[in-house]
């Protein structure tokens, strides 16, 4: 497995470009990756590890398979950055540390911070997007206003849910069973189901700010777009957060 990894051209060029402690970090990152990550994400970082299938969702009898992240594409769902951009190092560190709830991605709080930082650097060697793209800046998201979760905000959010046509995918009751839900695919051509809010916590995080962030960033690589431009009013966004929180209460 180690041999395979070292043979990857990307990695070799990455190592050559570095020196001293950075190269040591990358070598440590590779060790951590091979200990903790490779079984799912694969030695090439393409998400084709031995486990293959780590997450399945069943909605109304429809079973879909979600594969582990393909790092070679340089496309990430859960970020703090605008749609289409790479995540920040902090984003990667957060996911490595906390995991993705209700997915196959566990948290890694039992891995030292230094090791987690090094594996984040290693993950970035799988795609040259990290060298080509401009530095990334996170979107600025304020704390949720106190009205979030109120009945008034929730009712207004219900109207926003209609205007933004959320129900087309997520369904009127948020069960992920909208009219367009059946044929959805992700960027890799795999079937994907819209989130069923009534099933509980969302993967991107269930605090109001995290839900807001998902509206803004979209989930790259999936049919869930960014609503940053479509929903320019701050108040509409928080009202929609209120409505989503209500849907999650079932």
């Amino acid at each position: 497995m180690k041999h395979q990894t070292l043979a990857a051209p990307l990695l070799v060029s990455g190592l050559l470009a570095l020196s001293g402690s950075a190269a040591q970090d990358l070598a440590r990152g590779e060790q951590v990756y091979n200990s903790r990550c490779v079984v799912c994400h694969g030695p090439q970082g393409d998400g084709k590890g031995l486990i293959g299938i780590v997450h399945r969702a069943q909605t109304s009898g429809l079973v879909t398979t979600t594969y582990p992240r393909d790092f070679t594409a340089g496309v990430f769902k859960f970020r703090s950055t605008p749609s289409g951009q790479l995540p920040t190092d902090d984003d990667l560190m957060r996911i490595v540390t906390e995991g993705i709830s209700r997915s196959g991605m566990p948290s890694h709080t039992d891995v030292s911070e230094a090791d987690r930082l090094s594996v984040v650097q290693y993950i970035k060697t799988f795609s040259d997007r990290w060298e080509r793209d401009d530095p990334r800046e996170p979107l600025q998201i304020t704390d949720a206003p106190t009205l979030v979760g109120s009945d008034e905000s929730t009712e207004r959010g219900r109207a926003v849910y209609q205007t933004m046509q959320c129900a087309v995918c997520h369904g009127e009751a948020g069960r992920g069973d909208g009219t367009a839900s059946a044929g959805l695919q992700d960027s890799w051509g795999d079937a994907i189901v819209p989130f069923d809010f009534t099933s509980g916590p969302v993967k991107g995080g269930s605090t109001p700010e995290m839900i807001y962030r998902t509206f803004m960033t979209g989930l790259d690589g999936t049919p869930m777009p960014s609503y940053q431009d479509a929903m320019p009013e701050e108040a509409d966004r928080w009202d929609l957060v209120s409505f989503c929180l209500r849907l999650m209460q079932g």
Partner: protein
Amino acid sequence: MTAQRLLFFAVATTATSLLLGCAAAPPQDATETTATEATLHHEVPPGELDEYYAFFSGGQSGEVRVAGFPSMRVLKRIPVWNLDSATGWGITNESKAMLDGMVTGDTHHVHPSYADGTYDGKWLFVNDKANNRLARIRIDTLEVDATLNIPHTQGTHGVFPQRAPTTEWVVLNSEFRSPFENEGEGDMLDASSYGGVHTIVDAESMEIAGQVTTPVNLDLAATDYSGRYSFATSYNSEGGATISEMLAADRDYLVVFDWQRIKAALASGDYRTVDGIPVLDGSEGTGLTAYIPVPKNPHGVNVSPDGNYAVVCGKVSPTVSVIDINILADVFAGTIDPADAVVAEPEVGLGPLHTTYDGRGNAYTSLFIDSQIVKWNIQRAIDLQASPQEGETPVVDRLDVHYQVGHTMASMAETKDADGRYLLSLNKISKDRFLNVGPLKPENDQLVDISGEQMVLLADHAAYVEPHDVTIVRRDLIEDKVVHRVRLEDHPDAVTQSSVERIGNRVIARMTATAPVFGLQEVEVNEGDEVTFIVTNTDEIPDLAHGFALSNYGIQFIVAPFETKSVTFIADKPGVHWIYCTTFCHALHLEMRMRLVVRAR
């Protein structure tokens, strides 16, 4: 079947058919009787589902069992009062909180909750006769969600929910007369001061609404179909403490509790309070109760699906007593004598214990000593009581069962929707009916077709000790109430993000379980630390459960999809201890393990 028996069948059938003017059942000769064939199919082909849920008590095993019926395939064993090393019931913090340190129990009666005289698919209630407790099982998960200790009682045996308009109350009887405040003082051997207790539990809050005391013991329980009465058989009106003393009197009682009067007494404060519980005096003459005399040492009491009659089985007497519920108001008003509520007392056979119904006016009584189910017509019994006719009997049919039947129950028979299709005979003794498995033999639950005039034995089913009772519920009343997955947030400590927290010598490991990895790969603690693992199964696909077994520590449990369970223990064994998934979950299930590292002090 003996020739004598066949002759009896022929006579009984002919007589009944003629007397009832039943054109559909012409007289049959003995040959035809033996040739009666079942009209129901009890075998369920592969991949097909059963028509009914059957909820069995598990007796000394302390559990409740759920079977598909009529196939009798056991689908689930719900741990209630027992320790279950598979699910971790009795091991996890959540279950321990409901068990009060006792992982033994004796379940006798399982009854679902009601609305308007039929099942509403909300709860099951089950007793613990040994330790005087009541458990409530949620039907949506078919797991225990509440338990209650019943103080001041022993031998908490009969349990029955209110049948109309909805189950607001559940009643329990204490079979063993005991000192009410049983605290080791006074002349404890003087049984004359002992008593029975009829406990009323609020079904929603699972708190005791009140206790009605009686001088006599209270055995099996039933409620009527109007929400006005509950019943208790009493076999020890003598107040005896030995078997000889308990069999001294010729008559014992069916004790009837008037809920209108009990509610009025509770509302007006006409009670004493003991340990925070309203206690009402239910002695004769207090107006809260009626004592209907029945032959000595009765056992079961079962109410007919039309709500008209409570049938009390004689046990020691070869009779059943039919009590007209509609005239009980007159008994309480004092306008008729309690004995006048008994409108029939037919002789049915030796050792009558329990009665069930087909919804067509027939009753089926289990005969322990005769090892038979006897079918008899209720109206015919009442008519013959009013105008006896020499040689006439309400008995329609008899079926030999194998052997020594206790409870018997027909499909939906404890509701107004009794459908008269199947009957189960819960036989205590199986003797030669199964391959020998040593001195302790299984019970024999026998399936009977009661859809025709005559009963037909369909199948034997072995059961581990000791299902006393069963309720057989139409699938449509239960199936769509049962979920495939709990809500993740139902548990306040559900884990979506694994972490290890240390507070002094306490370590709390919060951990996800997602096929095929635990959310942590290693947890390091020091010898003597108090360690808590909180584990949430974050796989959302139905039927993908994970197990948690901590090697060398006697800790195991299963978490179903989105379920959270926790355990707390002292890390008193230093070394590396593998934690592994016990429930086959994935092609890499065997690799789903992690280390607990306990550093020696």
